[in-house]
Structure formats: structure tokens, C-alpha cells
């Protein structure tokens, strides 16, 4: 008899406790995220010279001004390279959150470039879906418009074109550490020297380490697989910082590459980083929301 009372009391008290806590549990369950995409694997659409996995969101115009000064080892007369500079002016635009297009003009060989970038896979977790990395496909074309040094011997339009195809695989390992690999293929319709290959195959590797909420350390390296013996070209290396302010990302870096487009820094870098052929440079990225 007494035991029944106890049971009833126990049960009713159980209902009471659960009644109080239930409500919070209920709303918590209702607000479980279906899936979480890894956002901001990198701050900018460029890691240093090369593209990062990031695409601009739909309707966002990103104006990027890139500068590379001369070589640090050029001496005091050249103010350690600051007297000389290469620039690229360009814009990236978000057609959709996943598809970006961009154009640019580099002072290096008076080159116009255009690219398409598509995010195929987005890293995510939660909601029963686990995708460990993001994948981007990039294709770019560059047109060298430099006039021939011997008049009347202008190269054909076709021979001025270079194409680059790149896949970028990236993973945001933690809020502070991200890493990416970029297998790349550069196809040159014409090459400067006969021993230079028309097709250059390379693998880029790069990462970022966040030092604070608004500051990160970035580095990238592009290894050429088929660099001919005796080639004057070097593998491209760069190390720098991203500084994020409100609407700008400032990237300050040191690199042995002068140019800021794929075909040129992957296949035409001539500076030897460890011999002091280092260019100080910066990218300034400013975004504008054109469509909402």
C-alpha cells in the first residue's frame, strides 16, 4: 500500500520535473542545425599569389589591387626594390555563391587575364552529412599584349595565350588552421625557349594559421614537376600576413614571384628566394555588395 503511494508520488514528481525542463529541450531540438558549412576557410580569395578555396558570395564585387616591388637584394640605390613595382588590378564577382568570374590586367608583360572559379564541394558536418573538404575548379586564361621588340615580327594572337586549369582541395582543420592543395596544369600556346615545355604540371600547397581574430600567417609553395634541367625558372614560394579590417583584407607578403597570375608565378618565376630574390608585396581587397 505504502509502496503504491511512493510510486504515484514518484511518477507525479517525475512529470513535474520533466515538465519544467522539457520546454528548453524541445526548443533546443527544434533548432538543431541541419548542416554546418565550413565558412571562411581563408580570409581572401587569394592565399598570396594563388587562388584560395574562397569564392565571393552572390552579388559581391571584390576589387583587388596587387603590388609586387623589386628584389630586396637589389641594393640601396634601388631602395631594396621599392623603386620598381609590378601591379595587377582586378575584380572578382560572385555570379552565385559558388560561381565566381574575374578579370584583371597585370603590368607584367602587359597581360590581361580572366578566370572562372566554381566551388564543386563544400566542407560540412552535421545533419548526418560529413564532407571533409571543399573542392574548387579554376580555369584561367592570360593574354600577353607586350609589343614585339623587333617591329614587323608580331606574334600571332594564339601564341599570346596561356591557359591554366587548377583543382583546389581545402580543409579547415580548426578555426585557426586551414590547408589546401592545388594540382595545376599550365598550357602555353607558345614558349620562349625551345627546351621549355608547353605544358607545365605543378602542385601547390598552402595554408594559413590564424594568429588572432583579424590576423593570419599564410604561406604557399608551387612545385613544378617537369621543370627542364638548366631551366631558369624556380618554384614559387610566398609567405605573408592577412590583416582584416572592416571591409578590407590587406595581405602583406614576401615572395620570389613577380607576377600575380597562375601561368606566370607557377611557370615563369625566376627569383631564387633563398638567394635574396625576394619581392615585398601586398594585395588590397575591398568588397562591394552590388546585389542583395
Amino acid at each position, binding site marked *: 500500500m505504502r509502496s503504491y503511494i511512493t510510486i504515484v508520488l514518484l*511518477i507525479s514528481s517525475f512529470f513535474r520535473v520533466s515538465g*519544467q525542463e522539457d520546454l528548453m529541450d524541445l526548443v533546443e531540438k*527544434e533548432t538543431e542545425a541541419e548542416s*554546418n558549412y565550413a565558412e571562411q576557410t581563408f580570409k581572401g580569395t587569394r592565399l598570396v599569389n594563388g587562388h584560395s578555396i574562397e569564392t565571393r558570395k552572390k552579388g559581391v564585387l571584390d576589387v583587388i589591387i596587387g603590388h609586387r616591388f623589386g628584389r630586396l637584394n637589389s641594393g640601396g640605390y634601388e631602395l631594396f626594390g621599392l623603386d620598381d613595382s609590378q601591379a595587377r588590378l582586378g575584380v572578382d564577382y560572385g555570379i552565385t555563391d559558388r560561381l565566381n568570374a574575374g578579370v584583371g590586367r597585370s603590368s607584367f608583360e602587359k597581360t590581361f587575364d580572366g578566370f572562372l572559379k566554381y566551388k564543386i564541394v563544400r566542407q560540412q558536418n552535421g545533419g548526418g552529412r560529413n564532407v571533409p573538404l571543399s573542392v574548387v575548379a579554376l580555369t584561367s586564361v592570360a593574354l600577353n599584349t607586350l609589343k614585339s621588340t623587333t617591329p614587323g615580327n608580331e606574334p600571332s594572337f594564339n601564341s599570346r595565350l596561356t591557359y591554366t586549369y587548377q583543382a583546389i582541395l581545402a580543409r579547415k582543420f580548426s578555426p585557426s588552421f586551414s590547408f589546401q592543395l592545388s594540382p595545376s596544369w599550365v598550357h602555353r600556346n607558345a614558349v620562349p625557349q625551345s627546351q621549355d615545355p608547353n605544358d607545365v604540371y605543378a602542385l601547390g600547397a598552402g595554408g594559413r594559421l590564424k594568429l588572432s581574430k583579424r590576423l593570419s600567417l599564410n604561406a604557399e609553395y608551387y612545385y613544378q614537376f617537369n621543370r627542364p634541367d638548366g631551366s631558369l625558372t624556380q618554384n614559387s614560394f610566398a609567405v605573408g600576413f592577412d590583416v582584416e579590417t572592416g*571591409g578590407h583584407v590587406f595581405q602583406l607578403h614576401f615572395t620570389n614571384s613577380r607576377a600575380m597570375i597562375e601561368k606566370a608565378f607557377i611557370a615563369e618565376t625566376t627569383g631564387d628566394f633563398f638567394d635574396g630574390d625576394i619581392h615585398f608585396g601586398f594585395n588590397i581587397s575591398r*568588397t562591394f555588395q552590388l546585389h542583395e
Partner: protein
Amino acid sequence: MDFKKHSSMKIFFIGLLLAGLATSVSGQSKYIDRQGKATFFSSAPMEDIKAQNDQAVSIIDTESGEVVASMLMRSFNFRKALMEEHFNENYVESHKYPKASFKGKVTNIGEVDFSKDGKYTLVVSGEITLHGITRPLTLKANAVIRNGAIQAHAVFPLTVKDFEIEVPRLVINNIAEVVEVTVSFNYQKMNP
């Protein structure tokens, strides 16, 4: 068999059933909105920032007066994509603190008859948790009860600093120290 004991057993089972019934009846006093709106508005010298979340979830128990709400920080939509990124990445740190929640009670429940259509002012007192910080919050909500649904609307200020959200000096003119939060829920009777 002892007849008396048997009947008292029956009584207790009936009692148990009644207790169960009572809880299921109290389950009828819960109202929910799964697509509530929460907006915040920051007005600073350089710019105004507004964001809206259309997936806030809230439940009100008209019997106990308990009110709870929860929402995902990532569900806040901004006019500018970059603002949304910065909001999640730098300010509320959504990867660490994915949700904001509220837990409280209607303190003037005695003045409200939820079974009758009409307009009421609800005084809700409780705790809000945002960016991992819990603070007391009391607000007044305007409620309209019509055809068994409860519409509630409230506006209250939140001080950014109270929730340990750091605003760098560089953007101090872009982000207000106190943001105005508006919530509006349209509660429907919850299916037990």
C-alpha cells in the same frame, strides 16, 4: 484475496491514470512557433546594420507561464554577405557558440486569460544566453490572442559589451554599443 486491498489498488491505478491524464492535459497548454522572427538593429555614425532570423523557435506554456526560445546565430541574414561573415566569425563566434537562447516566465500570468481573445501586455522575466554569456532579461511583450493563437511582439535593448563581444576600435563607428532587438512570435497550439 482481500477485497478491500484489491479495491484500494484500483483506486491507486485510477489515481495514476488521472495523474497521467493531468500531465497530458497540461501538454495542451503549450504553444509553439517554429518560424519566429528575431531582428537586431545597430545604429552607428558610419552605418546602420540590420539582420533578421526567420527560424527562431519559441514555446510558451500558458498554464505555468514558462517561455523559452532558441535560435541559431548562423540563421541571421544580413544585407551584406561580408557583414554576415564577420558577425559569425569575429563577433558572436558561431563556431563556438552556435545558439542564442532565452528561458523565462510570464510574471503577470494572473492578469491574462489565454482562452479569451484580446490584447494583453505580458511581463516576461528570465535569462538570455548569447556568446556563451548568460544575463538576466526582463521585457514587456504585446500579445494578441485570437482564435486560439497567440501573437507576441517585444522590443528590448542589448548591450554588446555585456556579452563579451569585442568590437575593435577601428570599427567602433560602425557598430553600436547597444543594439535594438525585436522578436515576434505567432504561437499555435502544440500537438501533444
